[in-house]
């Protein structure tokens, strides 16, 4: 098991559940590092003072919030900690809601919470109760000096903790404006489209679709390292459909 990112307690009423948090996701996007093309050496990012034109040690760098033109308020570590609040190691689940009622747009990052050293029975109890009710507990979670809204639910036999987007961070659908079509789609068209949707229906299987782009990039790198020429790309121009109904019928044919 990888090292835990955060150790603390989830509390519900007077029940304390010690937990350890682990990242539930990892990006597998191919990452490159910067190199100097002349000699293939690593590029280093160095900090320079823009006024003095000289390199500055990390210890001399502070965080400043711009309040006016070139006017900054510098915040020290303690001051940033003050904004984080004092509940740095407890996620108090204040409310519970139907997990299915939360639109997925609110979920941000996901962590797995494993049982801590003590209170393992309480962990099992919370997990089983959340699983039985299908509810998610909501509370505040402080991580790296920042407070998040968190949702805790049962997932795949463990507790999952999601950081959540706040309501004002989610763009309302109404703000996406476009004019409605002059004529609504006919029932027959909706029925045809529904048939097409049904004909392409399958059960969601996360492992079925691979990151083909990642595979292509890694393949290209391997070929290049072995001195092989790149593969020829395939081309497929998209087709234009003339008439909606005809296109739908052709799709189903």
């Amino acid at each position, binding site marked *: 098991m990888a090292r835990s990112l955060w150790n603390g307690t989830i509390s519900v009423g007077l029940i304390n559940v010690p937990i350890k948090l682990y990242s539930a996701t990892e990006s597998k996007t191919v990452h490159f590092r910067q190199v100097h093309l002349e000699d293939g050496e690593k590029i280093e990012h160095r900090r320079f003072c823009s006024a003095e034109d000289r390199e500055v040690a990390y210890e001399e760098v502070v965080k400043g919030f711009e309040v006016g033109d070139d006017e900054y308020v510098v915040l020290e570590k303690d*001051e940033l900690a003050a904004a984080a609040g004092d509940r740095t190691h407890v996620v108090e689940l204040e409310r519970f809601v139907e997990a299915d009622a939360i639109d997925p747009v609110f979920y941000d990052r996901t962590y797995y919470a494993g049982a801590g050293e003590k209170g393992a029975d309480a962990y099992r109890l919370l997990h089983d109760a959340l699983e039985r009710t299908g509810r998610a507990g909501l509370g505040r979670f402080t991580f790296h000096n920042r407070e998040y809204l968190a949702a805790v639910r049962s997932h795949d036999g463990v507790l999952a903790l999601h950081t959540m987007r706040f309501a004002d961070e989610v763009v309302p*659908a109404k703000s996406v*404006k476009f004019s409605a079509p002059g004529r609504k789609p006919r029932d027959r068209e909706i029925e045809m489209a529904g048939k097409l949707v049904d004909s392409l229906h399958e059960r969601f299987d*996360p492992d079925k679709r691979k990151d083909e782009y990642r595979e292509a990039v890694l393949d290209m790198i391997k070929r290049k390292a072995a001195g092989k020429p790149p593969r020829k790309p395939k*081309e497929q121009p998209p087709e234009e459909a003339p008439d909606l109904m005809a296109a739908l019928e052709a799709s189903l044919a």
Partner: protein
Amino acid sequence: MARSLWTGSLSFGLVNVPVALYSAVRDHDLHFHQLHEKDAARIDIRRFCAKEDEEVPLEEIGHAYELENGKTVVVTDEDLEAVAPRKTRTIDIEAFVDLADIDPIYFDHPYFLAPTGDSEGPRRAYQLLVEAMGRTERVALGRFVMRTKEYLVAIRVRDGRLALTTMRFGDEVRPSKGIDTGGRKPSKQQLDHAVALIDALSTDWDPTEWKDRYRERLQDVIARKRKGKRISAPKPEKAPSPVPDLMAALERSLAEATGKGQAGNGAGRSGDLADLSREELYERAQEADVPGRSSMSKDELVKTLSRR
């Protein structure tokens, strides 16, 4: 309306709908700059060759991939172009699945799709998809390319619009196997009590009830600092210890939760400030405009508020 991030067409069978992509989230975070402590001048990042110890202009910088054997392979823009997916202007719908089958763990960044152009056909085709998918809570799975990277996406109906979300691939979600799942299975009585406690604390999901108090506190800290006030870090809290008797703790929690329910949240208003959480106290301090509230501990907030 914000600027679109991508335009292209949504391809559904043989129907192509010209669409534009918009972000469905906005950033309200307060952003900081790195400054030199001594003179409060901005920090610039400059790129240096590690070997030559000399600054390198951007034109001389390339990308390299580190192989498992430690060797690096330089990858040029042309190399990447050669493997770039061809269909850079189309979102291809491959299949439809049920929304309830996709665990939210797979959803990454949310966007909206809107039809583009003035012609009637595409807008009607967009509307057709909204109606056909919305009725059955179906989600379209497809792929599309944005800024050279190919994404797996889910498209579903949200409030009469097509909402697109980039997805994590199956191997980007870690297995939960190996996570410590705790101790003994609870007894039926314990589980019933825990469920009753959750029921007592349950409400409808209303995202607007939850404010980003971190953002508010940070703004408060910045404002106070600007006025030259001192801000100190809160004292670290003591880790709560696990309760020795789960059943007794459940019973007491349940009694408190149901008691609170009957009093209708009025407990704090009439009575003891000490019963409120620090967050509730902080909110009151905000209403009362108590100076220095963001750096006060719970006890200090109780003391200050009770004096008013």
